[in-house]
């Protein structure tokens, strides 16, 4: 393996590593605009120039492979500094410098470089007026992408993305030289199924995501590592959130699954995590739905469960491994009920991994593989119908969005026959037939793991506390349900994560081994008992996301 020195630091890297990556390994940040680890190297922007001792000319780090004994100077070279300043002068000659009104500000490579490396100091020899692209400053080029051609630095990342990754080759340069601009064929809508990734890879604010634009400044957002709920592939992502609102999903690097990409379908599910249609537990008696407290609800439910001779549970492949495990242990193991997990094929989705291979979805759920690993009975729509036609004293629906069939009149009629307990978060007609309606929270509010169709057990983390106060009280119930938060965060609510409700139910039912204080303990119990999860360590599954490309591109 080649051993080289970069800015006085020695580093050994695998053969073929370029100088940008080698420098990173040595702890030196070489700036770049056109380079992207999952796109071809074109060496177009020239900001990554470094001095290779012994070579007369500066070399572009992105296209120079590390070789043994190389001595590279980046920050420590005067010539490099001068060259980069010149490159910046050219790039900024036509750049509008409209950072205050640009939504990319805070996550713009050009701005980062201008502000950090050059300390905001610039000289310019420009006397001409800036070249502009009238009519192309705020142009919706597709359903999700807005173009401002004036800001473009002609790095061609977006073009390469559509040619090499999404394979639509929908974007191109038109015209040439100073007047070159980004466009689609004949100005037709940019309907690439990965269109927002083109905005992601744009290092500046030339392409921005319409759905996120001006909703929140980038630096206000916190990023919590999570997993896409959109299909069985299980792309890694960050929940970008602020004050208990999820604003967007951004890709989190995982070479095995989604490299640094997200499909538009999954990406724009972000807002769906904010929905909270049911805020309080409700009980239906004599046709009348009335609000009850959690203690009343869970206690009464405990009695009903004990009294039920036949219990059936509709699980969901949208739930985490821990939730499915708890449900199985409690309802099937402890109460001898029957449980099925409906799986819906949904639309076909695909994703390209870091080796350029397409991964294909098996179904529309993030955890069908987990349900299988837990030995749960998977059913198709016909199987689900048959299950619902069977008689039962009590039915539990853990997630009404588990399958579209559950929203159909036929299923609702069947659920009306005997009492039904519905755990639900978003508006669903099941609320009209359920005898118990217990509000749950989104995946943004709790930890858990999901098993991807490639077999990876991937952890997602709680981004913020659920609405209301869920701390446990000493006597085993839950704390008083009066939320202590101020109104701006939404209406006071008592929705609880499902895993938590299941542990409390376990206590009510005397299944003490399942009465666990946190998801990590549930996972530990599960990995101890289940072959499919044996040997996995909860803490090691946590993706901090620190090493993700998205994050690291903003390191000084």
């Amino acid at each position: 393996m080649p051993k080289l020195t970069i800015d006085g630091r020695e580093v050994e890297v695998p053969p073929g590593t370029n100088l940008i990556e080698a420098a990173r390994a040595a702890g030196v940040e070489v700036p770049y605009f056109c380079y992207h680890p999952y796109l071809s190297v074109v060496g177009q922007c020239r900001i990554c120039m470094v001095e290779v001792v012994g070579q007369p000319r500066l070399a572009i780090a992105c296209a120079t492979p590390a070789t043994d004994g190389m001595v590279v100077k980046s920050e420590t070279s005067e010539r490099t500094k001068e060259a980069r300043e010149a490159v910046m002068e050219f790039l900024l000659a036509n750049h509008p410098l409209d950072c205050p009104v640009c939504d990319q500000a805070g996550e713009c490579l050009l701005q980062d470089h201008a502000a950090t490396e050059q300390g905001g100091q610039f000289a310019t020899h420009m006397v001409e007026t800036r070249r502009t692209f009238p009519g192309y400053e705020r142009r919706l080029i597709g359903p999700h992408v807005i173009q401002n051609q004036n800001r473009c630095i002609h790095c061609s990342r977006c073009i390469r993305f559509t040619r090499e990754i999404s394979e639509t080759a929908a974007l191109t340069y038109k015209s040439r030289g100073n007047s070159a601009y980004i466009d689609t064929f004949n100005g037709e809508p940019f309907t690439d199924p990965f269109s927002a990734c083109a905005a992601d890879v744009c290092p500046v604010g030339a392409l921005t995501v319409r759905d996120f634009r001006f909703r929140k400044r980038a630096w206000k957002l916190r990023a919590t590592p999570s997993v896409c709920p959109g299909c069985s592939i299980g792309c890694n992502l960050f929940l970008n959130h602020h004050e208990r609102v999820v604003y967007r999903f951004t890709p989190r690097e995982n070479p095995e699954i989604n490299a640094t990409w997200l499909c538009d379908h999954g990406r724009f599910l972000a807002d769906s995590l904010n929905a909270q249609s049911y805020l309080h537990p409700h009980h239906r008696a004599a046709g009348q739905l009335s609000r009850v407290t959690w203690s009343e609800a869970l206690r009464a439910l405990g009695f009903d469960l004990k009294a039920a001779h036949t219990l059936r549970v509709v699980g969901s492949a949208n739930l985490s491994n821990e939730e499915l495990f708890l449900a199985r242990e409690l309802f099937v193991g402890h109460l001898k009920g029957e449980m099925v997990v409906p799986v819906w094929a949904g639309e076909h989705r695909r994703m390209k991994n870091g080796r350029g291979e397409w991964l294909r979805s098996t179904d529309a759920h993030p955890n069908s593989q987990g349900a299988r690993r837990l030995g749960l009975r998977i059913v198709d729509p016909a199987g689900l119908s048959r299950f619902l036609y069977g008689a039962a004293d009590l039915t539990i629906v853990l997630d009404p969005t588990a399958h579209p069939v559950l929203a159909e009149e036929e299923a609702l009629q069947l659920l009306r026959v005997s009492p039904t307990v519905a755990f639900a978060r978003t508006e669903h007609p099941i609320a009209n037939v359920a005898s118990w309606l217990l509000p749950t929270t989104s995946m943004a509010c709790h930890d858990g793991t999901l098993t991807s169709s490639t077999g990876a057990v991937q952890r997602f983390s709680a981004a913020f506390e659920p609405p209301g106060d869920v701390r446990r009280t000493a006597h085993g119930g839950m704390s008083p349900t009066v939320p202590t938060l101020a109104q701006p965060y939404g209406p006071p609510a008592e929705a609880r994560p499902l895993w938590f409700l299941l542990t409390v139910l376990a206590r009510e039912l005397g299944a003490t081994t399942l009465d666990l204080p946190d998801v990590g303990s549930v996972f530990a119990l599960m990995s101890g008992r289940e072959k499919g999860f044996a040997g996995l360590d909860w803490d090691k599954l946590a993706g901090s996301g620190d090493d993700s490309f998205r994050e690291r591109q903003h390191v000084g």
Partner: protein
Amino acid sequence: MSTKPILSVPTEQLENTTFDATMEERILELLKRYPTTRATLIPVLWLCQERYGWLAPGVIRAVADRLGESPAYVEGVATFYTMFYTKPPAKFVLQACETLSCAVCGGKELLHHLESRLGIKPGEKTPDGVFQLVGVQCLGACGTAPVVQINDDYYENLTIERLDAVLDDLKGRS
């Protein structure tokens, strides 16, 4: 000299362009001459411009389909070169050389004369669609400067009077 006018087929008629047997034969001929299909793109675009007068979106799409490229890619190539017309050109495109040899031999004056006689600026078309003016760089005929290329023909050693006569003739024939 009898420069042939460019006859641009209207956009609508080119919307769903398909190549007829003659075109297909010539494309196959070209494909044989180049190492990759992609390398054939520019000659095929030339062929189309010759045939349809310009490269309408429908033509670009047909070329893309034929050569297995994305239409955006083909349009990118077509718009890179100023000699490919992606808008319908006038019947006669006057390409006045603006480079040094011509400039010192009266090229500048020729261009000014064209501007005032036609009432248009470089890059524009006359309202009747007969003439279009373009300033171009060295045409490689410095020895016979000043030069104006009209469509595919060179008009060399020009004077204002000779240029006027040429324009009158072309106008009359259009």
